[in-house]
C-alpha cells in the first residue's frame, strides 16, 4: 500500500532507496530484583557494559574524526569521560548492592542526572543533555542485549534513506554520504542543524515529517524528494516511473542550465539584471561561485553560532568570511550580521521567549550586546581586505539602529588599528527591509544607508501576520498579496529617489512567477540559492521588463492574491511558450 509523508523540503534531490530506521530512544527498563549471591556478577556485568561502550564510542570517534575533523570529533570526549564518571559508577553500584539489577540501577542513576540537566537554568548545561542521552541509550542497549542502532553500521553503497526522530550532533557527524543516500526526520525545520548540514554535504533531506518513525517498520522501499519535501513509501510502479523521469529530467535541466549560466543577464528589452547567490555556509562558497552568480547577495552568519557550545572568536569568523570572499575573487559579498535570538547563543543565560519572531533578536540583541557584536564587526572589517564587502543589518525598524551600528563599526576599526591589524575602516552599510516599519519608512532609511535588501519571507510573514512555518496557514502565505506588492513597489521607488541600491534575497526571488513579478515592480537585483542561479538567468533572458510591468499593473489592480497570480502566470507562460523548465516550476507554485 502506498503511503506518502509530507514534510519540509530541507535539501534538494530525488533518491530511490531503502528505509533504514534509526530508533535512538531510551528503552523501557523493567524493575528486576537480584539475589544477594548475584550482586557481584551484576557489578561485573555493569563494568563490562561500560567497557564495551568505551570501545564503541572510540570507534565512532575515529570515524567522526576522519569524516568531520578533530573539532567535531571532540564531542565524543565528553561522552568518554561520562563513561568513567565516578559518581555514575558509584551510584549504580550502590543500587546494585541493594539488590537492584544492573540495567535498572544504571537507568535510575542516569534518569536522575538527565532530569537535573534538563531542568538547569543555563542553556550551556541543557545542551549537554544530548550527550547524557547518548550514553544512557548506549549502555542500556548493551545491558539489555538490544541491537545497536548506530548509523556507522550502514554498509557503503546501501542507498539508505535514514529515517529518525531527530539527529543529535553526535549522530550527525557519523553520517557517511557513501552509505546514507538521504535523510528524513520527524522533527526539524529548514534552518535546523540537520537541514543545514544535509545541504552542505549534498545529501537530499526532508524534515518535519512528524510521525514517520512510528509509522514505518524499516526496510521498506521508498522515494525521497528533497525538493518538494515528500517521502513515498512502497511506491507503485507508475509512481516510481514518474519519479525516475523527473530525476532524469532534473539532471538534464541542471546540465542545460549550467551551460547557460555564464555571462550577463539581460532581458529581451535590454535591461540588465544582477543575479547573486545566497550562501548559508562557507563550504557552499565554491559551488555558489561556479553557479554563475555575480556575487553573494546574502551571506548568512548564523552557522557560526547555531548548535555550538562556544562562541566563535574573531579569528574563526574572519577565516569563514575570507573563505567566501576569496571564492568570489573581487565580486560583491553582502554579509548579514547575526540574525538570531539570545536563546540561540552558546554563551547562554538568556531566556527562551514566548514570541521569538517579535522578540529580542537580530540587530536588537547585537546592539544590546555591543562587545559580542564588535567581535563580528572586527572580523568583517578584517575580511574586507580580501574583496568588495558590504554589511547588512537584519530586522531594522528604525534609523537609530543604523546610526548606533555605525558608531560600533568605527569603534571596531579603531580597536583593530590599535592592534595594528590589516582592515578596512568603513564599509557600505545596508538594511534588510523585512518589517512593514522598514518598508513604509524606506525613504527615511535611504538617507542613512547605502543599500536595501528586501527579505521577502519575513516581509510577507510580518505584513500578513502569517507564520510561514505553520502548516495550517500554508495557503495563506501569499507573497503576491496586494499589500506585499505595494510595499515592495514603494521600497523600490524610495530607493530610486534616495539613490540607494535595492535587491531581493528571500525565497520570492527563486520562484519564477514571483521573480517575474519583482522585475515588474522595478527590482533589478535578485539573490537566490546557488542551485537556482542558472534558472533565474534563463528566466530573465527570456522576458521583457515591458511585459513584466504590464503584468504587474494588472496584478496590483487584481485585488486578490489568486487573481494577481493568474494575471502574472498567463503573461509569463505566453512569453515562454512551451519551456518545460518553467512549466514545472510554475505548476509547483
Amino acid at each position, binding site marked *: 500500500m502506498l503511503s506518502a509523508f509530507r514534510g519540509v523540503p530541507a535539501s534538494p534531490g530525488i533518491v530511490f532507496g531503502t528505509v533504514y530506521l534509526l530508533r535512538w530512544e531510551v528503552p523501557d527498563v523493567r524493575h528486576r530484583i537480584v539475589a544477594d549471591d548475584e550482586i557481584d556478577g551484576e557489578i561485573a556485568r555493569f563494568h563490562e557494559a561500560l567497557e564495551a561502550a568505551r570501545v564503541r564510542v572510540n570507534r565512532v570517534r575515529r570515524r567522526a574524526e576522519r569524516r568531520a575533523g578533530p573539532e567535531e570529533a*571532540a*564531542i565524543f*570526549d*565528553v561522552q568518554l*569521560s*561520562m563513561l*568513567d*564518571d*565516578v*559518581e*555514575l559508577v558509584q551510584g549504580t553500584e550502590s543500587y546494585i548492592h541493594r539488590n537492584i539489577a544492573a540495567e535498572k540501577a544504571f537507568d535510575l542513576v542516569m534518569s536522575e*542526572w538527565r532530569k*537535573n*540537566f534538563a531542568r*538547569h537554568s*543555563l542553556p*550551556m*548545561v541543557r545542551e*549537554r543533555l544530548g*550527550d*547524557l542521552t547518548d550514553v544512557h541509550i548506549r549502555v542500556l542497549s548493551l545491558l539489555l542485549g538490544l541491537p545497536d542502532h548506530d548509523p556507522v553500521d550502514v554498509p557503503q553503497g546501501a542507498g539508505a534513506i535514514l529515517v529518525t526522530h531527530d539527529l543529535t550532533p553526535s549522530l550527525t557527524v557519523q553520517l557517511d554520504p557513501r552509505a546514507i543516500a538521504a535523510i528524513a526526520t520527524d522533527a526539524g525545520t529548514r534552518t535546523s542543524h540537520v537541514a543545514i548540514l544535509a545541504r552542505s554535504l549534498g545529501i537530499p533531506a526532508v524534515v518535519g515529517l512528524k510521525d514517520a518513525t512510528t509509522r514505518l517498520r524499516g526496510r521498506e522501499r521508498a522515494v525521497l524528494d528533497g525538493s518538494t519535501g515528500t517521502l513515498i513509501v512502497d511506491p507503485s510502479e507508475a509512481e516510481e516511473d514518474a519519479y525516475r523521469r523527473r530525476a532524469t529530467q532534473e539532471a538534464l535541466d541542471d546540465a542545460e542550465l549550467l551551460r547557460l549560466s555564464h555571462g550577463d543577464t539581460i532581458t529581451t528589452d535590454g535591461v540588465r539584471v544582477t543575479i547573486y547567490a545566497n550562501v548559508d555556509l562557507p563550504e557552499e562558497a565554491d559551488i555558489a561561485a561556479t553557479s554563475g552568480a555575480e556575487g553573494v547577495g546574502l551571506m548568512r552568519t548564523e552557522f557560526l553560532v547555531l548548535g555550538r*557550545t*562556544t*562562541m566563535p*572568536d574573531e579569528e574563526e569568523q574572519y577565516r569563514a568570511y575570507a573563505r567566501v570572499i576569496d571564492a568570489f575573487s573581487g565580486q560583491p559579498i553582502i554579509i548579514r550580521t547575526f540574525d538570531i535570538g539570545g536563546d540561540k547563543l*552558546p*554563551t*547562554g*543565560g538568556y531566556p527562551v521567549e514566548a514570541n521569538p519572531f517579535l522578540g529580542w533578536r537580530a540587530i536588537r540583541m547585537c546592539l544590546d550586546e555591543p562587545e559580542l557584536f564588535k567581535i563580528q564587526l572586527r572580523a568583517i572589517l578584517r575580511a574586507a581586505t580580501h574583496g568588495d564587502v558590504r554589511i547588512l543589518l537584519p530586522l531594522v525598524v528604525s534609523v537609530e539602529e543604523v546610526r548606533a551600528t555605525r558608531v560600533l563599526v568605527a569603534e571596531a576599526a579603531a580597536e583593530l588599528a590599535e592592534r595594528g591589524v590589516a582592515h578596512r575602516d568603513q564599509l557600505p552599510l545596508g538594511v534588510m527591509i523585512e518589517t512593514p516599519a522598514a518598508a513604509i519608512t524606506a525613504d527615511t532609511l535611504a538617507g542613512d544607508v547605502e543599500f536595501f535588501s528586501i527579505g521577502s519571507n519575513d516581509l510577507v510573514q510580518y505584513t500578513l501576520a502569517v507564520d510561514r512555518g505553520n502548516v495550517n496557514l500554508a495557503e495563506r502565505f501569499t507573497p503576491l498579496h496586494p499589500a506585499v506588492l505595494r510595499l515592495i513597489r514603494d521600497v523600490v521607488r524610495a530607493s530610486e529617489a534616495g539613490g540607494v541600491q535595492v535587491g531581493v534575497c528571500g525565497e520570492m526571488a527563486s520562484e519564477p512567477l514571483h521573480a517575474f513579478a519583482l522585475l515588474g515592480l522595478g527590482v533589478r537585483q535578485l539573490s537566490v540559492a546557488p542551485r537556482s542561479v542558472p534558472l533565474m538567468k534563463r528566466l530573465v533572458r527570456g522576458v521583457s521588463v515591458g511585459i513584466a510591468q504590464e503584468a504587474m499593473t494588472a496584478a496590483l489592480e487584481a485585488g486578490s492574491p489568486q487573481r494577481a497570480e493568474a494575471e502574472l502566470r498567463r503573461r509569463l507562460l505566453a512569453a515562454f511558450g512551451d519551456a518545460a523548465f518553467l512549466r514545472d516550476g510554475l505548476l509547483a507554485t
Partner: protein
Amino acid sequence: MAERSVQITNRNGLHARPAAEIVKAASRFQSEITLVREELEVNGKSIMGVMMLAAECGSTVTVRATGPDEEMALESITDLIHRGFGEV
C-alpha cells in the same frame, strides 16, 4: 583539609572541555576533591557534577581537597583554572 577560592577567567566558563580537564587533573590524586559554587557542591572527579556547576566567566568557585595529597591536588586544580585552560 585544604581549601581555596578561584575566579573563572576563561571566556566560556566551565563548559564541557574545561570540565573534563578538571576531572582529569582531580582523578590523579588520592584526596577527595569537592567544587563549591553558591549552594551547589559537586564531586571534582565527576564530569557530570562539574558540568552541573555551570560556572560562568567571572564567577567564583571554591576548591576543597581532603586527603594525603590535598595540598598538591589543590595547587594543581587552582592553577589549571587560573591559566584559563589555555583558552584566550
